[in-house]
């Protein structure tokens, strides 16, 4: 390991200039963004957009670090090696937890996930399809063949999607505001009694708890983050 041990990420690490695309992140920014993506995914009831760029960049970074750790001439009990190893483990944990959370959401609501395929990575698409097919076959074999043949429904994909449960947008989440937003309307759709819808101004650094459906859009535009 050379003394000036830096982690070139995609281009050069010390270039903090923001160019047209997001590829020139410093590894520090990558870490921050991955951590925030992990927290958002953990606390949101629905599947969020897959952060393909972050995941791939983190994989590259982790591979790089692992190679350096393995090929290091320093003893494995040296302070430097231990610190790098600890940080590697911490980052690896976040990445794995992120992917694990997404997989468990896919397993809970596979049809909803397949409905919005743009939110999935290619591997997750394959996973969701396989999972759904396996479940269908398993249920068909174990239950449907035992019922009378009139009750066996066509496994029409559309009816299937309508029958299966969808994730609940009414779940409550805590979030913190990154950028002020004025005039957020909390609409009560089933409000027949004529009570006015609430309009709130969000200031930076405020924290709230409310139903996810109200802030879904703000989360996608990164004006808030879940806490």
């Amino acid at each position, binding site marked *: 390991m050379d*003394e*000036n*041990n*830096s*982690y070139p990420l995609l281009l050069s690490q010390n270039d903090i200039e923001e160019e047209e695309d997001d590829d020139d992140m410093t*590894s*520090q920014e*990558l*870490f921050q963004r991955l*951590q925030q993506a992990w927290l958002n995914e*953990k*606390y949101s009831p629905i599947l969020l957009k897959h952060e393909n760029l972050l995941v791939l960049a983190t994989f590259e*970074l982790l591979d790089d*670090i692992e190679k350096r750790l393995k090929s290091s001439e320093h003893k494995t009990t040296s*302070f*430097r090696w*231990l*610190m*790098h190893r*600890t*940080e590697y483990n*911490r*980052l690896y*944990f976040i990445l794995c937890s992120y992917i694990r959370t997404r997989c468990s959401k896919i397993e809970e609501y596979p049809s909803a996930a397949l409905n919005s395929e743009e939110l999935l990575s290619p591997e997750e698409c394959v996973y969701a399809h396989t999972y759904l097919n396996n479940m269908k076959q398993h249920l068909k074999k174990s239950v449907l063949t035992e019922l009378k043949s009139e009750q066996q429904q066509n496994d029409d994909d559309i009816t299937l999607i309508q029958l299966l449960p969808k994730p609940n947008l*009414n*779940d*409550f989440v*805590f979030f913190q505001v990154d950028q002020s937003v004025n005039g957020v309307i*909390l609409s009560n759709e*089933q*409000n*027949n*009694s004529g009570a006015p819808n*609430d309009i*709130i101004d969000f200031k930076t*650094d*405020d*924290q*709230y*708890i*409310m*139903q996810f459906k*109200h802030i879904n859009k703000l989360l996608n535009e990164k004006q808030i983050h879940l*806490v």
Partner: protein
Amino acid sequence: MDIDEVQYLSENELISVVPNFKHPEIHLIRGSVGPFLPLVPLQVPMWMAIHLKESHRCRFVCPEWLTLDSVQELLKQEQQQDTFTPMPNPYVFILTQTIMNVALEDIPNGDQIRLLMKDLWDSRLAKLRSSIGNLARSGALYAKVTHLTQVEICLIRNFLKTSLKHIAQLQDAIVEE
């Protein structure tokens, strides 16, 4: 959502330590740390500080928000106001506990600060309980919770989620009739 994960997040915060060994700069993912020189204080992430302390290679420097005076001030403000006061750091309580576990001898008046922190925690918890009660009674489906620390949010998260969900369902049912 567990306390463990809040602790994990809190370990990314920076803290000042005074090392007693020499070591050149280390370039971590989140920036470089060092160079380590004996008796020169520097900022390191908490996980590294814990590791150093447990291998007896450093001494902690008390962070400003953990001195006796500032904790007393915080406690006074908290007890005077009905609403929550802003905390200097989103991880105050968990960091205090970690620091006290690892480096009690490095913090002047450590025991007194521990007691004051416990009082602070108790008074905030009492406010939390009463405000949750008010929230449930008012039937509102959202609330502003600025100035709550991460640990407190973690504590009430599950309870508030299920209870607000039930309230929302009941409200929908009433409107439909």
